[in-house]
């Protein structure tokens, strides 16, 4: 019985808690991708670098605050800097739209052309981020590191397995819930949000009513700036910030958006968790959990790890391929890809 509890705690500690946190980050990233796809109708390859840019700016502002001696108590200072990161990212995205995407929109360019254009934007942002903050890894999390450490948990419960809950995990989940609730309130209850839904439902018809397309596009970029920066900062607090890592996040984020159904916000959230849980499940060494569960004679000698963590992107990629093959519109109905 105790071993069973130990197994559950180990499972929580190594699989469920980290995957939930990662899933929430992916979900926020995928929401941005899915909004762009729903409204502007292209897959934005620059999204990973948008997240990196927003995070880089937030880090710079964090450092500034720290140099002024401003902190946020037990919470990371980056949360105070986040609104500034969002604002600067919003300016960048609106500027990009003005000088790049609007031109192609006027031309009624095909989605595939916009995808290629977004790759160009990706390379530019890529360079911009490295220019602003450099290529090295940055750790910018301050404040309390743990809500409860493994040792505290062991002492508290008397169990053998420990459960550590990191501050960044709690912040990720709480922030994600707030952001998602606010987004859905906005999309469903406000007139601006309804304009966006109308645009996503039927662009032809939206253009034929009084809905101002340029305003809908503008609001979309603002929401995307907020979602991307928040996702990036949460990921960076949880792990660390490195421009290249963020660029690589593009794959699991797209996998999440596609799995859930591109253009479908609920799907993006679902997809984020599906991808995160799959990735963690496949790359976690199950030895510890199994050792608790199985009788000593059957205890595994190997790590029982299905894939090395080096291959974690293969999981996203495999999910992406399987979904595109068998259910191109995603688990929840999105627009066909």
């Amino acid at each position, binding site marked *: 019985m105790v071993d069973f509890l130990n197994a559950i705690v180990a499972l929580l500690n190594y699989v469920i808690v980290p995957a939930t946190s990662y899933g929430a980050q992916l979900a926020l990233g995928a929401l941005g991708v899915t909004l762009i796809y729903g409204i502007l109708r292209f897959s934005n390859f620059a999204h990973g670098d948008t997240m990196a840019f927003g995070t880089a700016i937030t880090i710079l502002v964090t450092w500034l605050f720290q140099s002024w001696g401003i902190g946020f108590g037990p919470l990371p200072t980056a949360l105070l800097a986040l609104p500034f990161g969002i604002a600067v990212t919003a300016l960048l995205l609106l500027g990009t739209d003005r000088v790049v995407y609007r031109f192609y929109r006027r031309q009624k360019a095909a989605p595939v052309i916009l995808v290629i254009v977004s790759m160009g934007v990706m390379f530019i942002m890529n360079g911009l981020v490295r220019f602003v903050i450099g290529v090295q890894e940055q750790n910018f999390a301050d404040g309390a590191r743990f809500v409860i450490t493994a040792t505290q948990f062991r002492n508290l419960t008397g169990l053998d397995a420990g459960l550590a809950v990191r501050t960044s995990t709690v912040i990720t989940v709480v922030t994600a819930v707030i952001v998602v609730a606010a987004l859905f309130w*906005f999309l469903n209850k*406000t*007139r*601006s949000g*309804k*304009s966006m*839904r*109308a645009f996503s*439902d*039927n662009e*032809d*018809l*939206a*253009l*034929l*009513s*009084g*809905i*101002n*397309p340029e*305003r809908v596009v503008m*609001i979309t970029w*603002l929401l995307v700036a907020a979602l991307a920066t928040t996702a990036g900062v949460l990921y960076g607090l949880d792990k660390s910030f490195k421009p290249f890592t963020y660029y690589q996040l593009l794959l699991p984020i797209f996998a999440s958006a596609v799995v859930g159904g591109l253009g479908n916000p609920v799907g993006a959230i679902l997809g984020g968790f599906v991808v995160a849980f799959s990735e963690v499940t496949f790359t976690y060494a199950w030895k510890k959990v199994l050792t608790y569960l199985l009788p000593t004679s059957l205890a595994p000698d190997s790590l029982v790890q299905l894939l090395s963590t080096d291959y974690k992107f293969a999981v996203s990629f495999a999910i992406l391929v399987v979904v595109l093959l068998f259910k191109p519109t995603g688990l929840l109905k999105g627009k066909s890809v």
Partner: protein
Amino acid sequence: MIVVEDLHKHFGGFHAVDGASLEIRKGSITGLIGPNGAGKTTLFNVIAGRLPPTSGRVLMDGEDITGLTPHELFHKGLLRTFQIAHEFGSMTVRENLMMVPAQQHGETLWNTWFRRGAIAAQERALAKKADEVLEFLTISHLANQKASQISGGQKKLLELGRTMMVEAKIVFLDEVGAGVNRTLLNTIGDAIVRLNKERGYTFCVIEHDMDFIGRLCDPVIVMAEGKVLAQGSAAHIMENEAVIEAYLGRGLKNKTKAGATA
């Protein structure tokens, strides 16, 4: 009201609209008929700014409106409906109508946060207006249904209702009667006549039902193979040799024959 001058729309080497010139008089209900593939919908798409013309001009009250976006044309009072009805599927029928009028307070982020009262008041007024439109179209009972779930004919009514949410000047209706049952078609016909008389809407109507065209439309314009073939009163058109031939070639034999011999 609307003048189309030597309009061409080519898709690759295919001339969907091939030098069409026509006029839609203010206050008229002009019928536009022609066999399938004649280029009627393409003509609408070009006039309504959905497709750019290959060449030619479209004038509205003397002003060149060629190449304006659908959104700009909406502000000039030019509205259109689609051959296959379009709707905002995730919204209710009432919400669909409420989306139409332009420049609503709630469309800016500023107002969304800081002028909640003004938005609410406007939304109430719009909801009331939408309900009046639904009543006019005899579909009040559908107000709270998801627009994706109503029948094709009801969607056609909803499309017409959309044009009633603003003061339109001219409305282009593409195959109003397609997939609509007889009773509903009569409702649509009555609504068109009333809008024309009471609110001064000018209409241009594509429709295959000759009874409907004969009852509502004057004049009637006939298109075939991208060109305007004939123009005149409904009775006159149905006796026109060239018109009958255009239809005979397309297998709409019975309907036209009945019309011609009647």
